[in-house]
């Protein structure tokens, strides 16, 4: 009899549970995500493990909030310390090759061949050389980049860092980490740097 009463209470509790909806936790949502993908080509399942910055920025955007200033600055500082500058101290490669890298969007999709060379796909989001009219607007225009900012050491170093890991300067920037995530090689980044900062590049004409 006593047991039946307890079962009765448990039943009521289940009913009450239905009435008060409890949203899934982030962990539960992430478990669902992890069961929903399979690896293919270069795209392995470890891509679903978020980095600290990916997680912090995802949550902030979902809630429509800024990352708190102290946390943001600490993460930016930590990221800045990880940037690898060119070993030979030379920042600029070939701007013509840089233009090709900026035009190409290939690489790192499951449909791409493993180990093939990646593009930067810069035009997807930025205006760069004035003759290319098919450019996106997710990032700012880079037309006249070097001419406007000057061809000095500070600009070279900042731009290299920005391409290597944008999160060092703007924590939740939508730009990929071209150096840090191994999207472009050091030589390719030099070429893209030249596209932006060689005075002879069409960008600065």
């Amino acid at each position, binding site marked *: 009899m006593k047991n039946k009463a307890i079962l009765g209470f448990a039943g009521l509790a289940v009913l009450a549970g*239905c009435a008060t909806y409890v949203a899934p936790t982030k962990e539960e949502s992430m478990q669902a*995500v992890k069961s*929903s993908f399979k690896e293919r080509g270069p*795209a392995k399942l470890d891509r679903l493990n978020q980095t600290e910055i990916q997680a912090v920025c995802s949550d902030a955007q979902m809630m429509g909030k800024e990352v708190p200033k102290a946390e943001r600055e600490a993460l930016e500082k930590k990221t800045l310390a990880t940037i690898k500058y060119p070993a030979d101290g030379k920042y600029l490669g070939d701007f013509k090759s840089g233009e090709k890298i900026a035009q190409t969007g290939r690489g790192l999709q499951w449909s791409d061949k493993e180990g093939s060379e990646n593009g930067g796909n810069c035009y997807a989001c930025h205006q760069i050389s004035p003759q290319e009219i*098919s*450019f996106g607007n997710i990032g700012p225009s880079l037309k006249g980049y070097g001419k406007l900012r000057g061809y000095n050491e500070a600009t070279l170093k900042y731009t290299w860092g920005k391409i290597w890991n944008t999160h060092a300067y703007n924590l939740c920037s939508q730009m990929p980490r071209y150096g840090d995530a*191994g999207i472009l090689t050091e030589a390719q980044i030099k070429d893209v740097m030249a596209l932006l900062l060689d005075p002879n590049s069409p960008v600065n004409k």
Partner: protein
Amino acid sequence: MSRQTWATTVAGIILSVASVSSHAQGSAAEGIARYREMLQDGNPAELTVARGEELWKTKRGPKNVSLEQCDLGLGAGVVKGAYAQMPRYFADADQVMDFESRVVWCMVNLQGMDRAAITKSPYSGTGQRQTDVEALAAFAVEMSRGMPVSIPQSHPKEKASFDRGRQAFYMRGGPFDFSCATCHGVNSQRIRLQDLPNISGNKQDADRAFTTWPAYRVSQGALRTMQWRLYDCFRQQRFPELIFLSPTSVDLITFLGVNANGAKMDAPAIKR
């Protein structure tokens, strides 16, 4: 017109539009808008709709029955308006299902077909015939044309599907750090010249994103479903391959659908 002839005609239109555009990006965008307008005159998806209707009504599978006893949420056999109210919770399967999940469930449970065989290659390849699921989706969505999107949120599992979908929408990951929201969370954004709908923050964009799929994709000469749309977005997002009918695929469709509630279905649409 055959698929090939159609593609050639459209390619011709693109070329002529490109040749009249000046160097100004504004006129290029106008050209694209004109091209899109010209596409609306005829939609090859009609052929797929017709085949889907036939598939729905034909006795098939080991049990030799039609799908006319399949319950899409509005009662057995009711197709009219059903697509506009999915994903929804189905008690017999004890889960939330989008149209594609549900029709596969019916093919397996009513017609006795093999689930693994149906889901092995869910999207038709270049020059291939549309898959049965694609054809059935085309038919079902046509039967909801003009009807208001009304994705239910009364069952706790429907609410949970929306909430997980929202989390997945904002989840940044992979080597490019992209989430759905990277491209679809701000107004008036473009990749190259392609306009991107702001699905989380702009009602009009959210409406269009949900109500115009499935769609005939001119560049691929094929009808594509909502499951395909998400699968191909994740490819470009540099995520691993989204599994057909997986929990996250359904959760995201719930998220997109609820955000479009009240809008009128307008699919199969035709897109570039």
